[in-house]
């Protein structure tokens, strides 16, 4: 389904490098424990620059989601309708992604989801699908 590749920056390079091993990697503040996203040089909670990396289990909930019925870029026309969602990961961060489903009508906020990796060129793209415990 992917048309566009990730666009790693100086701040997100570690994140996209980790996805090559199918790992969802975040920075965790060593001072206060806050797991942050977007990636940043310092903790927005306590301003500590000291951090370690943590690997997310890739399990979370749908915080919110929308269903695109039109393509705002030609490249997405063949994907319609598709679901864009904010995923609340167990470790804390909210990340933007897609929920892969044949039935968008079944989705609801707070629904449990887990990660699936879609491979595209040299990248693995983190996406999510519903799952019941």
């Amino acid at each position, binding site marked *: 389904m*992917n*048309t*566009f*590749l*990730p*666009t790693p920056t100086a701040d*997100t390079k570690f994140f996209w490098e980790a996805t090559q091993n199918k790992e969802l990697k975040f920075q965790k503040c060593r001072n206060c424990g806050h797991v942050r*996203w*977007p990636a940043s040089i310092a903790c927005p909670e306590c301003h500590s620059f000291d951090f370690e990396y943590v690997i997310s289990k890739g399990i979370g909930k749908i*915080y*919110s*989601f*929308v*269903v*695109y*019925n*039109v*393509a*705002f*870029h*030609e490249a*997405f026309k063949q*994907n319609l*309708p*598709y679901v*864009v969602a*904010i995923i609340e990961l167990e470790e804390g*961060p*909210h*990340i*933007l*992604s*897609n929920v892969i489903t044949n039935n*968008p009508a079944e989705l*609801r*906020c*707070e629904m449990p989801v887990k990660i699936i990796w879609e491979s595209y060129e040299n990248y693995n*793209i983190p996406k999510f699908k519903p799952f019941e415990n």
Partner: protein
Amino acid sequence: MKYTHLKKLRDKYAIVGVGYTPQGKVPGRSALSFYVEAGINAIKDAGLKKEDIDGLICYRQFPAISNEPEATPYLVAQLLGIEPTVLSQESYCPRHHFVQAVSLLEAGFCNYVLIIYADNALSGRRMFIEEATHPEPKNDNYMYGEFGFVGDYALAARRAMFEFETGPNTWKEIAVSQRKWANLNPNATMYNKPLTYEDYLNSEYLIEPFRKLDASLISDGGRACIVTSVERAKDLKNPVVSIMGIGEANPSIDIHQATYITGPTGAKKASQMAFEMADITLNDIDACEIYDCFTYTVEITMQDYGFFKPGEGKDFFKDGFTAPGGKLPVNTSGGLLSEAYFMGLTPITEAVMQLMGRAEKRQLGVAIGNKKPEIILCSDNGGVLQTHATIILRRL
């Protein structure tokens, strides 16, 4: 009562002139041409000379369409033939324009501040709402097919549907009531285009839960107004409309991480500031002009302002409560949904025209079946609920 020190600013500054241009679909015009026309018309409307303008604040400008030069504040000043002491243009929509104007006037850096927004977005096919060719992707959001304002606000609206009772049945009331106002306003893009609940509900989803009818228009045209002191305003030709209260808040967090998107948004803090400065309550408000980039924005703003409890918007907006003849008129020009999109200047200048008594067929008063307004509550917000300004205007 954290903001009572602002009371000294109550009714001290005024909006003294409004500049309009042709609006809607106006092909063959540059964005700059609308800036210049709106600016000149505001100066004329206030009865001022261009030499009087010593502050110029431009709203955010999206990248120029085709080969036009960027509408920088320098170029706007040059083409207006003015040399402002203070010149600014915001980026990315923090809504500080009126707070900045009042601050500049209070400190004495400026005497007359001109505030403008203009664009040729419709003829130039700007792409925030319509299905259109989007520029090539620049960041990781595009990778997931997330293309900006409609999808982002729809994410907020969807979460709201989960947290309290809202959805299309609330939003259709907002869309239909505002269309009724537009049908009293010959300048409105949707003039003579009635809208029924059925039209709304039968229309396709654009990005579910939003339909196109939940989204702002895209417009060609411009809008401007001038802020000065009430003392100076008294010597000018228009009735005096004062800034009774003003407040601002910037929760800032991106929609994809934010949890304030279902309230309280910045509307709560900004309105507390404005109401403490004005020293009034919601009961004193005769009408509202609420920034309505989407129907949901009207709901969450008025909910955060305290007009109703979470989820009670469905009952609040029904039976034409905010439509012509209703108890609390909201967005009396048709708003961004049905009049035209000039950022916060659509709602704010409409409040000024209503308070000056210059709103013609849509003028609040006995003919419409509403009270002649003395106090109007306005809002402006930007980003995806990341910034909010509240302005309470009053006919002195």
